């Protein structure tokens, strides 16, 4: 197998008394698209958010186990949470543009890390808006409020904003589910391009999307990892009966 970006080791998450992830152990390959599939409520979002230390923002949540990134456990006590979140980006299901201009949205992250020179920021903003496939639509109104964009454009803006802090891993949680088909397709093709430089983990409950995009597939059911492997194998020759049933559309 190629080099590994994230080694998930015995990861568990519980909301109060309800344990929603059980003992997940899996390696996420670098610069590939790994799709997490499974019926709704099986823990896909929780798994994704626990890979960038966002799961812990919910009150009363407990996370235990290890996620090893760049040789270090992101849950180790000495780990800087902000550093983890900078290097492992998360794109949410619904776009949330920050209450500022399009330009400032993309520049928000770089500014957090102390980049102040206008020329450098200009360059980052243009490059990331291009990478997200939004530049041509907004280049004449960079200083307009981001909230004025359509929802599909907002989602691409959020992608550009996430890319601007130069993460190594991109976590995408059903990022096309709120979008019209055309916008969804734009995001998909962007992600396929970005895979050359980024490790991408995406949650989807649209199986066709997983088939189109994924190199690896991880099937999650009731908080347990049921099956994991190269996309071709999982889709064409699932080993587990539950995977077969899910792929056959016997439950959602």
């Amino acid at each position, binding site marked *: 197998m190629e080099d590994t970006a994230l080694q998930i080791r015995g990861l568990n998450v519980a909301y109060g008394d309800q344990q929603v992830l059980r003992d997940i152990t899996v390696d996420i390959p670098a610069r590939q698209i790994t799709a997490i599939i499974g019926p709704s409520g099986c823990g896909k979002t929780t798994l994704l958010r626990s890979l960038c230390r*966002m799961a812990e923002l919910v*009150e009363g949540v407990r996370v235990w186990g290890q996620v090893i990134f760049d040789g270090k456990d992101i849950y180790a006590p000495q780990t800087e949470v*902000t550093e983890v979140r*900078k290097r492992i*980006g998360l794109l*949410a299901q619904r776009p949330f543009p*920050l209450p500022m201009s399009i330009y400032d949205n993309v520049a*928000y*992250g770089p500014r957090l890390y102390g980049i102040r020179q206008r020329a450098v920021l200009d360059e980052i903003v243009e490059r990331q808006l291009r990478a997200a496939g939004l530049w041509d639509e907004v280049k004449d109104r960079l200083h307009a409020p981001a909230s004025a964009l359509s929802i599909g454009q907002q989602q691409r803006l959020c992608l550009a904003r996430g890319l601007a802090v130069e993460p190594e891993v991109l976590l995408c949680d059903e990022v096309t589910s709120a979008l019209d088909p055309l916008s969804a397709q734009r995001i998909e093709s962007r992600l396929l391009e970005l895979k050359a430089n980024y490790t991408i983990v995406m949650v989807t409950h649209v199986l066709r999307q997983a088939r189109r995009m994924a190199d690896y597939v991880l099937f999650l059911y009731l908080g347990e990892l049921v099956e994991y492997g190269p996309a071709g194998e999982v889709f064409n020759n699932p080993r587990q009966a539950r995977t077969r049933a899910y792929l056959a559309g016997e439950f959602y």
Partner: protein
Amino acid sequence: MWALTLLVALLVPFMALALLERARPLFDIAPPGRLLLASEWRPLKQEFGFLPFIAGTLWVTLIAMLLATPLSLLCAIYLAEYAPRRLRELVKPPIDLLAGIPSVVYGLWGVLTIVPFIREVVAPWAREALGFLPLMRSDNPTGYSVLAGGIVLGVMVFPVIISTAEEVIRAVPNGLREAALALGATRWQMVKGVVLRRALSGVIAAVVLGFSRAFGETMAVMMVVGNVPQLPRSIFDAGYPLSALIANNYGEMMSIPLYDSALMAAALILLIVVVVFTALARIALIQAIRRAA
């Protein structure tokens, strides 16, 4: 329901008209503009300058807002963004309760603690240490001062600003907070750059709402400001706010010609300012909460 709402909505204009009607005789001897800026208050000589009372109101209100705004905003931010839910649920009800305490109780508390504290501690200290500053000169030995009024009023305004601002801040959707955190922002960077930015107009409205309560508040202030119709030159000087003028004199000196007209004019000024501020704050608040959610 509909008719009742209309009736309530019409109450304020009716009140304003009635006050205007009764204040009119005063406006016959001098135009309102001149009355507002004149500083002599000698009812027996038919001189009715409102400036000392307007100044008294402004002094007390400004001191109250200077004290209450930063503290209560910090509290609101802490409660909305940092405090665990348990603590917030524990602290909110008493804060809302504070807003409901009758103002005479605050006034009494002011007389018993704030006024002596200013008289015995703050004023003597200021005389030594700050006497050279223009607004700090202290030659009023009583402690009854615009500072006392401002402190008591500030404490009264505190819960109003906290609970409104806290609500506005909490109306900011979580997705926005998470968007900032996911980029590696610290919590404070997130609060400052994203949450407060989004909630800004609502937070301002909360302050203005507090301001409009402070502006018209009567009882508590009247008990501690000294009620001397002069232009205060220092925070230790006594003052005489508009509301205190009305409350102290209505029904007392009505035999003096035009006196009741003057009190009506004072009430009219107060009513207009409070209504305008409250309306602006309410409109801004509704929009801010709608925009945030």
